[in-house]
């Protein structure tokens, strides 16, 4: 089941004009910002398929930058996002890509600040729902069926156990979990799909664990 709750259908409350091209884009931008964890100096946005062809008309550009500025889908500041980004000294570039992707509404977001760089590929699947299919070269299989917690961590023993211990303490059940790394002992990524939405306090607690670099959640 791609859609779980009635509010995926009757909702979200959002700034127009398009749930896939505006609200979905804003969500992709916001997940990127949350994962990056700070205001970037530069945001490079690569649009594919329908996004590449129609982004200006749908305000996809404004929306995705609104997300990068940490605005929610219903935040009316979205309409001014490009101006606000400029004021906040975030350098924004849009790139229209020719490559054919599996889903027509795909965007690659690259955020940089000094030496730090993060790359994420998101897909807007309709009705404002999104899926993240790639993060920093890690291929994700985040179906979007369930709320999910993303944990970027160092590839060390005990990290997975400590994360799942915290989840157990909060009585959060894990529906699906994936751990991937690029190289032994380097950066790794944990993707945890859970049954219910998790509280902010749980994320904060996870972040305090040793060897954890970043924690974020997607899908309310």
């Amino acid at each position, binding site marked *: 089941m791609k859609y779980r709750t*009635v509010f*995926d*259908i*009757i909702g979200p*409350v959002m*700034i*127009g004009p398009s749930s896939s091209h505006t609200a979905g884009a804003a969500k992709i931008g916001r997940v990127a910002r949350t994962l990056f964890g700070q205001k970037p100096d530069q945001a490079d946005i690569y649009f594919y398929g*329908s996004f590449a062809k129609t982004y200006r008309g749908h305000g996809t550009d404004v929306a995705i930058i609104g997300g990068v500025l940490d605005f929610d889908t219903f935040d009316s500041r979205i309409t001014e996002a490009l101006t606000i980004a400029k004021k906040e000294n975030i350098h924004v570039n849009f790139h229209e890509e020719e490559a054919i992707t599996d889903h027509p509404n795909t965007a690659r977001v690259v955020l940089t600040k000094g030496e730090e760089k993060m790359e994420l590929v998101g897909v807007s699947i309709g009705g404002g729902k999104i899926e993240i299919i790639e993060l920093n070269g890690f291929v994700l299989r985040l179906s979007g069926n369930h709320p999910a917690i993303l944990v970027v961590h160092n590839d060390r023993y005990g990290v997975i156990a400590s994360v799942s211990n915290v989840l157990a303490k909060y009585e959060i059940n894990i529906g699906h979990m994936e751990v991937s790394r690029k190289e032994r002992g380097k950066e790794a990524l944990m993707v945890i799909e859970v049954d219910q939405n998790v509280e902010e306090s749980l994320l904060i607690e996870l972040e305090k664990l040793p060897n954890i670099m970043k924690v974020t959640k997607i899908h309310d």
Partner: protein
Amino acid sequence: MFRNVAELVELAESTSKSISEIMIEQEMEVTGRTRTEIKEQMLKNLNVMKAAVERGITEKVRSVSGLTGGDAVLLQEYIKKGNYLSSETVLDAVSKAVATNEVNAAMGTICATPTAGSAGVVPGVLFGMTKKLEPTDEQMVNYLFVAGAFGFVVANNASISGAAGGCQAEVGSATGMAAAALVELAGGTPSQSAEAMAIALKNMLGLVCDPVAGLVEVPCVKRNAIGASIAVVAADMALAGITSRIPCDEVIDAMYKIGQTMPEALRETAQGGLAATPTGRELEAKIYGVSLDKK
């Protein structure tokens, strides 16, 4: 948990519950939230819809591109003159669907039902009925749960994305959802809701997504308008006892398969259909300074 319309109707009729009640119970089970929380969130969404309709029928909103705006007000003025040909409820529903989409195109605040491009039909039909049916807030919220239940089935078994399935997946789904919800609001049975959905969606099959300049404006606003009128008529037909020869789930499946075989040019890329007409291209060139297919 229901996976299709047949299960939804069976679940409702075997337990003598309304479809809205089945949807609320499922939501409680899936999310672990309380009935009160769920109903309050839906009431909030209802109030967003109400505000968008109010704004659209009183204020001559204009989109950034200037392509749409002000038609909801025109239709309200026309209704007041009393010389209409269809009916007051149909036209009121139509004008309120238009109002919502005009506000959406102007980057105003709306509630997606199921998407922003198709956000007009569901609230349009609902607020078009307020004079005739005088629903309470509770009944209006329940109407949205019925619409949500049918939309839930479409979204999980087919698609609600114009880029994936064409306009039939967006305004088509919304029209079916509104027809089904209106049946319950008017006192019909769960199976009549399913018939209304089937009748409405059948008449939206094959509808392509061909927005001029790629904007959610032309023809989206007017497709929501006519979608609202189809929803009202389909609900009337189902309440009269008319059934669809093709069961609702099979209509949804047909819609999905049509979407899969639809050329990309007709799936929200602004490359075919109305977007590719001489006037469509002219408007596009005016808005962007250059035509999309020449970029």
